[in-house]
């Protein structure tokens, strides 16, 4: 109702507390900016080391995820990223795909 974007979708609005009044919005092609980051040398990833990023999307919304196809030493607050649908886990031959952030070429 108030326009606050939630990632992932949720039922109660953080901002206005309205319940069950969300509308789906596609953010797959929307760019974002790294708000803070870490290189996690303990957590599991198919592409270690895990680069953990908090991404603020253009026009609102924040999502915390793994960054991929990136140089760990080059990540900064302010790095521009887009979203990409990638394999996150594989167990017993079953693959789990979800969203990761990827640096947008030529923006750093």
């Amino acid at each position: 109702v108030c326009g606050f974007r939630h990632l992932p979708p949720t039922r109660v609005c953080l901002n206005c507390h309205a319940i069950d009044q969300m509308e789906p919005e596609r953010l797959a092609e929307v760019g974002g900016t790294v708000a803070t980051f870490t290189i996690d040398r303990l957590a599991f990833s198919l592409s270690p080391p895990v680069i953990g990023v908090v991404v603020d999307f253009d026009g609102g919304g924040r999502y915390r995820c793994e960054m991929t196809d990136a140089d760990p030493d080059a990540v900064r607050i302010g790095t521009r990223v887009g979203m990409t649908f990638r394999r996150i886990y594989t167990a017993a031959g079953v693959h789990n795909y979800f969203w990761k952030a990827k640096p947008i070429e030529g923006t750093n």
Partner: protein
Amino acid sequence: MASKGIRDRVAIVGMGCTPFGERWDKGVEDLLTDATKETVASAGVALGDIDAFWLGTMGSGVSGITLSKPLKLDYKPVSRLENFCATGSEAFRNACYAVASGAYDLAMAIGVEKLKDSGYSGLVGVRPVGDGTDPGLSSPAAFSFLAPAYAHKYGVDPEEMKDVLTRIAWKNHRNGAVNPRAQFRKEVSLETIKASPLVAGQLGVFDCSGVSDGSAAAIVCRASDAHRYTDHPLYVKALSFVAGPAAGPIDPGYDYTTFPEVVRSAEDAYRQAGITDPRAELAMAEVHDCFTPTELVLMEDLGFAERGTAWKEVLAGTFDRDGELPVNPDGGLKSFGHPIGASGLRMLFECWLQLRREAPPERQIASVDAGRTLGLTHNLGGAPGECVSFVGVVGSEPSA
């Protein structure tokens, strides 16, 4: 804030704390028995005099039987609870409310955790299965988000930031070096801390708290009864607990340089205790230094330093054991490790020793001799932007 507070209505009349560490020689039942034995002796009561029990543990047992079985309790009420890493403080808070209500005369809060038996170097705990989309960051990684955000916001050079974090670990190891109950009892040089292998972001091994086993406990009663048990009780001035809406990971308005939950619980606790200038009024603070950036940010969230200045205060030694406001004089999570259920009560145990001048001379803090009577404990669980926070204040004098 809707909390009314129970200032000066409840008193601590006995406490105990086992040595923390790799206690291969002790099981959960041994640790609980050791802490209980010391605590009842401290209060000068028999176990059978205690009317009700609150047991805090994250993963070392479920149900009240975890306590009633080893202690052979005589059909007494035992609540078992967890609230992430603030579990020990939560056990204490509930025991205080139980005696304040008049439902019981004597209650015991006890916390325990045995982390070393899990075969995993980190915190244990059973959580519901997720949907497989979470990035699954480690705890040090989640807390390391604070470091670049803080440095970026306040213009601290990354090298300088590393020095600040290193100084916090150095200080807490130095305090733990003279504490026989601590897991790590050696000073560690700044060079060693700074050069330790990286775990997450800027955080090295020495920026992380230890992994240990331990137990600690407190016996509480209504303040009006306290002098039946001891000439030197500690009065409960404030108990505040906040569970946040976990806004950080979804709200671009959150900048990873603060714990809003801590700010709220600190404001509430200071209001309950009648504290207006914590840095000037508190004798000491025990805070949740799970990772070095946590302690840095807490100095601002708890009102010990202005926003953007805690890093300078850390370097200046403001929070050293002989500084203006000693923080973690016992060595903190850094030196004690973090047996989850026990940590909040371990913090309180240091207030018990220091405010009543029972700490050995080599580590007794000067602020108590200077007339300060209040100690703060801060315990948090979760991660930056999505946590629970406890702030408590105890004092050696009833309010005028």
